[in-house]
């Protein structure tokens, strides 16, 4: 099949990612406007629609500058009668919370779905916040799919519910669903010829001021009550009854009097866990709609139960609501939840197995405990591995230069008098060892914002604030203007790698050349923008030029007032991709190899630890002596290690490929074992 995502129809099935399933659900529902500020784990939702847009009629996709703009965009499209999908990561809703708080007041016209990728365990976020709590005051209804099929089906359904009740609907998808891949059964798509926008004035709903706002407030509370009625009977909420005449293996508890409530991916964990411990006869409530909850439904479920266990992640949003309902209906039984399951970290299938096993006093199979112990026994012997910059990443040069200039390389000391403010992006990894470069990391553009206050509060310190290009455009310009206005004594380094790299390389407003080498119209000139703000100290530098860069930083730190350095070099992954597309031939171009000569290397660790390029690796010789070498398969020949080695142990070998293949003497230049491989590869 050419392109199943676009052309698939009822009866087709395929392997698809959770995020793609959400996008497909929107496509089946006839989405016409799709926007997001990229953020893991939600990014592929809009990427999928964007990369297929040339095959999809009447669709507009946008990687907006931030979530606030992105959600407003979706609202505008909805008001114009176009079904719209907005996606963001969990913390994105903080930025979009303003439009989210108005959406219930104004209502929607065409369906609007807000897909949120939550990130329990925070593998790619700076916090674990559970966005469901927002709905207690935004009143946005929440749907929670449990698997790939539901991700698609619920998204499609969400558009209908949105129109029926005039709410923007939240579709919650944790990373375990966004990045779950499995079978999807396709449905048919709405006729895309029918998509056409027509904005009609609707002052009664869209104007919110004074008593108009109060009126709309009352209206949406009424709509919320209608929605509760819907939730009571909706097929999205399912009660699985305990079988009657139960095989009551366990005399201590009567199966029929205990029930479980869960939603989303955690529900999938629960079903698996109950099967795992052979506890398959308990009453279960699967909530597909987790806000608003229907009192009727909860009442019906609690009715004949003595104890209920709510299985969910984070602080217990369901437990909070259900306990309120239980109180109102005078429920006499016990409700468990956060007394069993942690409110922090990801709730894994293991956690649910352990929690359910303990509660029901039904032990998991012996091999489960053995496996857990097996890891415990050796875990302190396994070296930690944390992510780091890619081989050849320009951020490595930047972080290295900053640390050299401030004199803090390889120290995690608390007494530093150059303060280095981190921010959100690939360069965030500079906070990890071996660099330990950053003093704080919270939300987007917290670097300069917090930094400028510290520059007032503690005048004894020098401050460097980092920001990436995409983060800068997201919400950094107002912060910078604030710093200009107050002439903050700060060095602001904009790490401009031309892309929103971390989330899959979306364009930023100043991306000048597309991946296929085509110039992008309307690209903003960053330097002109800075100049127009009245900043007088602006320097641009190639971050891989580490010696010059650290001198420049030292000089800048001596100056008073606001200084800006643009560290400009394209993300190496994009550069390499473009070269691949352009099919850059080696032919007559002189080829370069960086070679680490082990006999000259004194293992000073400048390249291996301080710079820590992953292409520089460690090997043992037969006599057990260790030496460093450059893995030529991984090396992208950025030359930074060559620049930093103080002992001349790394050399640059330039040669012509043709002469290399044809003549012996040149081959002899390369004399250790690894280089044999190297020759083979290049030839």
């Amino acid at each position, binding site marked *: 099949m050419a392109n199943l995502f676009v052309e698939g129809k009822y009866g087709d*099935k*395929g*392997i698809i990612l959770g995020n793609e399933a959400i996008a497909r659900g929107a496509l089946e529902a006839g989405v016409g406007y799709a926007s997001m500020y990229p953020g*893991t784990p939600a990014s592929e939702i809009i990427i999928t629609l964007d990369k297929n847009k040339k095959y999809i009629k009447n669709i507009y996709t946008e990687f907006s500058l931030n979530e606030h703009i992105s959600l407003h965009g979706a609202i505008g499209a909805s008001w114009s009668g176009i079904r719209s999908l907005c996606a963001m990561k969990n913390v994105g809703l903080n930025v979009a919370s303003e439009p989210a708080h108005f959406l219930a007041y104004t209502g929607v016209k065409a369906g609007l779905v807000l897909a949120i990728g939550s990130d329990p365990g925070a593998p*790619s976020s700076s916090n674990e916040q559970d966005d469901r709590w927002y709905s207690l005051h935004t009143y946005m209804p929440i749907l929670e799919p449990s*698997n*790939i099929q539901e991700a698609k089906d619920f998204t499609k359904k969400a558009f209908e519910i949105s129109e029926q009740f005039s709410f923007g609907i939240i579709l919650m998808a944790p990373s*375990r669903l966004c*990045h*779950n*891949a*499995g*079978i999807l059964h396709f449905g048919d798509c709405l006729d895309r010829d029918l998509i056409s926008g027509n904005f009609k004035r609707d002052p009664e709903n869209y104007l919110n001021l004074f008593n108009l706002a109060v009126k709309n407030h009352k209206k949406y509370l009424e709509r919320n009550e209608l929605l509760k009625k819907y939730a009571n009977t909706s097929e999205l909420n399912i009660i*699985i009854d305990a079988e009657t005449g139960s095989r009551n293996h366990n005399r201590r508890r009567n199966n029929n009097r205990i029930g479980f409530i869960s939603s989303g*991916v955690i529900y*999938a*964990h629960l*079903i*698996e*866990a*109950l*099967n795992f411990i052979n506890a*398959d006869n308990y009453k279960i409530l699967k909530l597909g709609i987790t806000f608003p909850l229907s009192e009727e439904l909860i009442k019906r479920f609690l009715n004949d139960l003595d104890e209920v266990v709510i299985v969910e992640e984070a602080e217990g949003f369901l437990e909070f609501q259900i306990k309120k309902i239980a109180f109102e209906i005078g429920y006499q039984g016990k409700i468990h939840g956060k007394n069993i399951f942690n409110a922090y970290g990801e709730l*894994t*299938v*293991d956690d649910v197995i352990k929690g359910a096993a303990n509660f029901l006093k039904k032990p998991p199979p012996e*091999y*489960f405990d053995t*496996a*857990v112990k*097996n*890891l415990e026994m050796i875990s302190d*012997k*396994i*070296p*930690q*591995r*944390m*992510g*780091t*910059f*890619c*081989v050849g*990443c320009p951020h490595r040069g930047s972080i290295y230069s900053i640390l050299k200039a401030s004199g803090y390389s*390889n120290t995690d000391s608390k007494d530093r008098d150059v303060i280095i403010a981190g921010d959100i992006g*690939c360069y965030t*990894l500079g906070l990890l060892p*071996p660099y330990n470069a950053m003093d704080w990391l919270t939300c987007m553009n917290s670097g300069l914002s917090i930094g400028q206050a510290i520059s007032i509060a503690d005048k004894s310190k020098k401050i460097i604030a980092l920001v990436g290009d995409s983060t800068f455009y997201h919400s950094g310009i107002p912060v910078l203007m604030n710093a200009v206005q107050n002439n903050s004594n700060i060095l602001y380094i904009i790490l401009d790698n031309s892309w929103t*790299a*971390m*989330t*899959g390389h979306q364009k930023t407003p100043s991306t000048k050349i597309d991946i296929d080498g085509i110039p992008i119209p309307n690209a903003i000139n960053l330097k002109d923008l800075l100049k127009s703000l009245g900043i007088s100290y602006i320097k641009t530098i190639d971050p891989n030029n580490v010696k010059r860069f650290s001198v420049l930083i030292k000089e800048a730190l001596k100056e008073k007032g606001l200084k800006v350095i643009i560290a400009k070099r394209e993300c190496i992954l994009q550069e390499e991709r473009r070269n691949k597309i352009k099919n850059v031939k080696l032919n007559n171009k002189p080829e370069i190899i960086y070679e680490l000569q082990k006999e000259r290397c004194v293992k000073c660790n400048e390249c*291996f*630890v301080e710079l820590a390029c*992953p292409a520089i*690796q*460690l090997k043992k010789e037969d006599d057990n002596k260790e030496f460093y070498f450059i893995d030529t*398969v991984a090396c992208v020949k950025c030359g930074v290690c060559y620049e930093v080695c103080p002992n001349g142990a790394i050399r640059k070998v330039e040669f012509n490929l043709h002469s290399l293949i044809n003549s012996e003497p040149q081959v002899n230049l390369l004399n250790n074992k690894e280089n044999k491989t190297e020759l*083979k*590869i290049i030839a």
Partner: protein
Amino acid sequence: MQQFNIAITGLGGQGIITAGTILKNAALNSDLQDVSGSERRGGAQREGYVEAFVKYIFYDSVSEMQNQRKNMHSPMIASGDADVLISLEPIETLRAISYVNKNSVIIFNTNTHIPISVRMGKSKYPELYDILNSLYNITDKVFYYDFNKLSIENFGSIISVNVISLGVVFAKTNIPISKNVIENILLKGPKAQDNLRAFNIGLNL
């Protein structure tokens, strides 16, 4: 209901996600079969820990497939519940040890990738001998090869380590999928001939 779980672990850039997707596509042939499994993707950055789960589910009957107590599956593999562990880096094999049990098959790549903590001298990279000891303590079905070397020798880069390792799965485990199905999937994909060759290299190890 029969299940067959495969955990694939390693580092960003090793093609772990692709290997998982290839295996998952093999589940499309039968109506009574399902597959799921989440992926831990690093960011754009390489070097980070990456894993993909492949959970094959074979239903005994249509009614079982429609049973709500049976037809929902966690995207994760529980401790001890993997039939096969494929690991493309030695210490990542250890990190994933909790997935396996005494009947599991472990297939791993001996090519090491030194993490930062070892570079800094904060921890020691364990010897292959010790790694093998830990693994043999759990199961005697351990197979290990230098997939990087095999890939570089045959394809000039490490691009094929993932597909070679899939070949080994079909040679050394009782995966309930026919190898022809995988070959057909590879045939339809990009770089079909290279991938088929890589798969066969693994099959013959």
